[in-house]
């Protein structure tokens, strides 16, 4: 199998902080890798190293077969970068931004204009094309960012938290675009704090925490590997939630995920026999449940088990995690 992105043993220190602590990555050509992790885990640093913006202290990485440190110009020629940091010039219009990028990439002025118009149409920005980007909404800006990274028809695209802070509608648009690019054969590495995003888009997932890869595999493999199953309980009386949570905490040693909107508690379990224990304990406590059962874990459960923290499941409302 050929890999569009490969990295081994990447280490990056900022003073005494170790941002990357031996990260390995491999993305087969034409696939989507979701790099998942809480804020400060090292996701952005990893992207910056792979996109040649930062030099790793140790280890190596190749993008499209080119060494990111020794052949950085060649790497820059085949990548596109969009995200928290790589954006567009707010003072310029959408067209001016894209034309500038086209010209920097060696297109003639006429060709750059054609390409800009093409991309602006594709991202439904034609109407706003001549307005300054600072007048754009968040979703429009992100689409402009994405369009800017596509001017050079990259073979490998890095998306650093592409949907952070977007409303669900804009997020779906970004997802659709990513899927379209993958259909065209583009390899994508996207970082996200949102498990749902990784689940929706990624063929492969790498979970990073404290600068280390703590799990890697397909979404399915990860769900299976982590504790196997997840227990869901919906108490009849909402007021019983804390008591149920206490029982689950005692039996599993983990804080269960509490979905207060639906009144459901869930927790990863590694032993299916725990179900009968839970039923007995609830019975003893005089708590009845409308719903109680086991299912394959969600990526939330995977994340909880791996990092000891809950991930962010609602992109639109939890735009910025601390």
């Amino acid at each position, binding site marked *: 199998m050929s890999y569009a992105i490969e990295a081994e043993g990447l280490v990056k220190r900022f003073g005494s902080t170790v941002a990357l602590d031996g990260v390995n990555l491999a993305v087969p050509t034409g696939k989507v890798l979701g790099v998942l992790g809480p804020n400060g885990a090292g996701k952005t640093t990893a992207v*910056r190293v792979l*996109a*040649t*913006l*930062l*030099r790793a202290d140790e280890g190596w990485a190749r993008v*499209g077969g*080119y060494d990111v440190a020794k*052949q950085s*110009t*060649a*790497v*820059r*020629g*085949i*990548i*596109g*970068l969009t995200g*928290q*940091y*790589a*954006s*567009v*010039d*707010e*003072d*310029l219009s959408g067209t*001016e931004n894209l034309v*500038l*990028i086209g*010209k*920097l*990439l*060696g*297109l003639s002025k006429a*060709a750059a204009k*054609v*390409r800009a118009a093409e991309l602006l149409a594709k991202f439904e920005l034609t109407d706003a094309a001549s307005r*300054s980007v600072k007048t754009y909404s968040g979703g429009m800006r992100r689409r402009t960012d994405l369009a*800017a*990274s596509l001017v*050079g*028809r990259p073979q490998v695209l890095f998306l650093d938290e592409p949907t952070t802070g977007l409303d669900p509608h804009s997020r779906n648009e970004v997802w659709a675009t990513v899927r379209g690019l993958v259909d065209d054969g583009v390899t994508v590495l996207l970082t996200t704090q949102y498990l749902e995003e990784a689940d929706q888009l990624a063929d492969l997932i790498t979970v990073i925490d404290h600068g280390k890869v703590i799990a890697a595999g397909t979404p399915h493999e990860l769900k299976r590997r982590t504790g196997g199953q997840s227990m869901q309980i919906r108490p009849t009386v909402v007021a019983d939630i804390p008591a149920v949570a206490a029982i689950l905490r005692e039996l599993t040693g983990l804080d269960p995920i509490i979905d207060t909107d639906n009144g459901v508690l869930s927790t990863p379990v590694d032993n299916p026999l725990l179900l009968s224990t839970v039923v007995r304990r609830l019975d003893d406590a005089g708590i009845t449940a409308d719903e109680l059962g086991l299912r394959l874990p969600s990526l939330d459960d995977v994340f909880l088990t791996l990092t000891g923290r809950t991930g962010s499941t609602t992109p639109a409302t939890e735009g910025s995690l601390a």
Partner: protein
Amino acid sequence: MTTITAPTTHIGPGAALRHGLALAGRAVTKVRKNPESLLDVTLQPIIFLLLFVYLFGGAIQGSTDAYLQVLLPGLMVQNIAFASLGTGMALNTDISKGVFDRFRSMPIARSAPLVGAVLGDIVRFVVTLTVLFTVATIMGFRVQTDPGRFLIAVLLLIAFGLCLCWVSVWVGMLVKSPQAVPGTLVAFIFPLTFGSNVFVPSQSMPGWLQAWVDINPVTHLTNAARGLLLGGDWVGDAAWAFLWAVVIAGIFFPLALRAYRKRVG
């Protein structure tokens, strides 16, 4: 459909210049969209001109009209020096913005964003010179030579400004906030421009100051500009000023590039 060429592994000087020019175009577009960013290079020259001519003209030269003639060429030099402050501020602001990372993730010359910012400043130089010259003309200034020599003076001033810009870029890469650029550089620009023969002849100064004023590039450039605009010898001073400009660029271009590389990682 347009296609973009296969990955390049090396960027030649021609391509680097093209990248720099494309980014200079961006700087010019930004000025066009935010004309208020030109306030410093339009208001200040007018204030300096009015203030110095009418306040000190009589005392220094005996008449405001006579003083205007010798002051204007020097004020052009001084305002070019002040206009160069803007480059460091603009780059310092730019570098903290996401668009800079995008440029750096593209296969363009490393120096292109810096070269683009410096070349883009030619607009500021032209604006400040135009404003000065127009107001001075209204006040009664007249070029005593010919358009050819006037053009040489303008080109010499812009060339000097382009070299001086690298000091500003260097400082802009070292300080944290854009506002710190003028704050730091005033300590450099003030002795450079006031410690010269722009405002008063060096004969009236104490010996130690005269020694500095006589080697100061601003003095040489002012002498050259006076020669070119009012008549008289200019070649020797122009050569000294040019040599100074080359030395300044020779020192500060590499320093600026190194500070830039360090700053952006």
